């Protein structure tokens, strides 16, 4: 393979991975902007969707059914996580919230282990057939499914947030929580919607990626944290920037992983995270710093 073809291959793979991370990153941004919680358990939503889909598929369910069911199950999990874990401590400090999501991560992982054990599971690709060659890169058909489905999901979200009152209400909660309450908007209802949505996005990502990589009970942490990298670059508040950040991260990860031995792949994510943090810090400093929020509340 020529260098150009190699590069194209890496970039293509990176975009595909980036699409998955973007779905997770979006879930993180929705949760953070509406409920102020940094959700360490986001990856577990993906893991549940993936494992459930794999089990159903091996029981003979067709792919067209497995995808929505996996997504719906994770959406339900998101809702339950909100009702059980976050709503009781809704008004607590962000520190407490992040500790609670940490606890949720550990508990959910344990539950997944209990039900599915340590074995890896797999899903057949959504459509059979030879890989396709596009712009010098060879893409498995599943990759196209990923890109397509993620693209559709993003468009639906765009429509939801931009054109429906529920979506605007979610944005309103993120913009000004006090004003939203003064309008009669119930923060619990909005929180529940946000977490359900994040669960669905996570589940979708999990089901999509399983045919390419295997599903295990502990796949969540890595996936979730990679979603974080892109979301952090977006300051955890901007949807379009989070998607962009995750796509870019996917590409960078793919390019760098092509050069380093495979054991280091996960470490790359975190090297990039540090860089993202550094950039955020520099931007914050230039704007006149951290005291901004406190000051403006005068």
């Amino acid at each position: 393979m020529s260098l150009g073809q190699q590069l194209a291959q890496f970039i293509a793979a990176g975009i595909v991975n980036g699409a998955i991370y973007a779905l997770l990153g979006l879930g993180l941004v929705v949760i953070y902007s509406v409920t102020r919680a940094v959700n360490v358990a986001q990856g577990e939503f993906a893991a549940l969707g993936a494992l459930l889909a794999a089990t159903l598929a091996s029981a003979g369910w067709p792919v067209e059914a497995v995808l929505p069911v996996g997504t719906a199950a994770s959406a339900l999990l998101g809702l339950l996580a909100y009702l059980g874990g976050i709503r009781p401590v809704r008004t607590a400090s962000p520190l407490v919230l992040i500790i609670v999501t940490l606890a949720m991560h550990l508990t959910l992982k344990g539950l997944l282990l209990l039900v599915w054990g340590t074995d890896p599971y797999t899903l057949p690709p959504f459509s059979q057939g030879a890989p396709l060659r596009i712009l010098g890169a060879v893409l498995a058909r599943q990759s196209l499914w990923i890109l397509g489905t993620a693209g559709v999901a993003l468009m639906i979200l765009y429509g939801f947030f931009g054109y429906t009152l529920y979506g605007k209400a979610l944005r309103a909660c993120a913009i000004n929580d006090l004003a939203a309450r003064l309008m009669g908007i119930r923060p619990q209802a909005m929180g529940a919607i946000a977490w359900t949505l994040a669960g669905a996005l996570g589940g979708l990502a999990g089901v999509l990626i399983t045919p390419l990589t295997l599903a295990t009970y502990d796949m969540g942490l890595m996936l979730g944290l990679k979603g974080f990298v892109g979301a952090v670059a977006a300051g955890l508040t901007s949807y379009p920037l989070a998607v962009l950040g995750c796509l870019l991260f996917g590409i960078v990860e793919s390019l760098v992983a092509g050069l380093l031995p495979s054991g280091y792949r996960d470490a790359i994510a975190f090297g990039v995270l540090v860089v993202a943090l550094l950039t955020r810090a520099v931007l914050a400093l230039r704007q006149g710093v951290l005291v901004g929020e406190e000051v403006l509340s005068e």
Partner: protein
Amino acid sequence: MKPSWARRSPESARGAGGSLQVYDLQASYGPVQALRGATLECAPGELVAIIGPNGAGKTTLLRAILGLLPHRGDVLLDGRSLTALSTEDRVRAGLALVPERRQLFDTLSVRDNLLLSGFGRGLGRSRMEERLRLVFSLFPALAERPRAPARSLSGGQQQMLAIGRALMGEPRVLLMDEPLLGLAPLIVSELLGLLRRLCDEGLSVVLVEQNARAALAVADRAYVLERGRIVRSGSARDLQADPAVHSAYLGGPLKPEAPRGK
């Protein structure tokens, strides 16, 4: 010539006003007790003003009525106690607050800001459209640019939007926290005229204002709040004539200082 937005609107707030009663309301910010037992009421269709110095607890009073901070004492709307309800539910019951500094959704459009208020109060689509038309007729400046983001409006227009948002949900009692701050005098008088009209048509309004002169000029009754307590109450006219109120809020200076050396 009446200003454009003092025109009679096709639909009015006729008879929509509720009664508000507040008994011995107490609230603290951490260790600082800002409200030490305030009792007041507003009858349907009344415009009640609350005046007092800065730091007296006027804003705290409104926030406590809305349940934005924990409080002791009772808040009744049309005889029904709201004390156990959350802020959102008090709003759904019929209170509306135009908060200090407006608190608009600044990146959302004028129209969205208004619609979200209807959405929050659970109005159906057609009812929302009706209320939207009402608000636009009261504030034509908003009707001119419904899709503009709220932050691009001028100060006066933002205040109009804040009031419009509050009116969207057909409130029974409208509470306003210093709506006249930072507004040009012309807009102040227009706004006061609008409030008076809304009351005449039946809406109950509680107006907290720093600008005592303007508030007393337009109110039916008024209360004076000082350091967390109601210290005087009565009809607006009586308070305007009261020498103590007059000297404190309508332009009385401190004891003159000894001449300063420089």
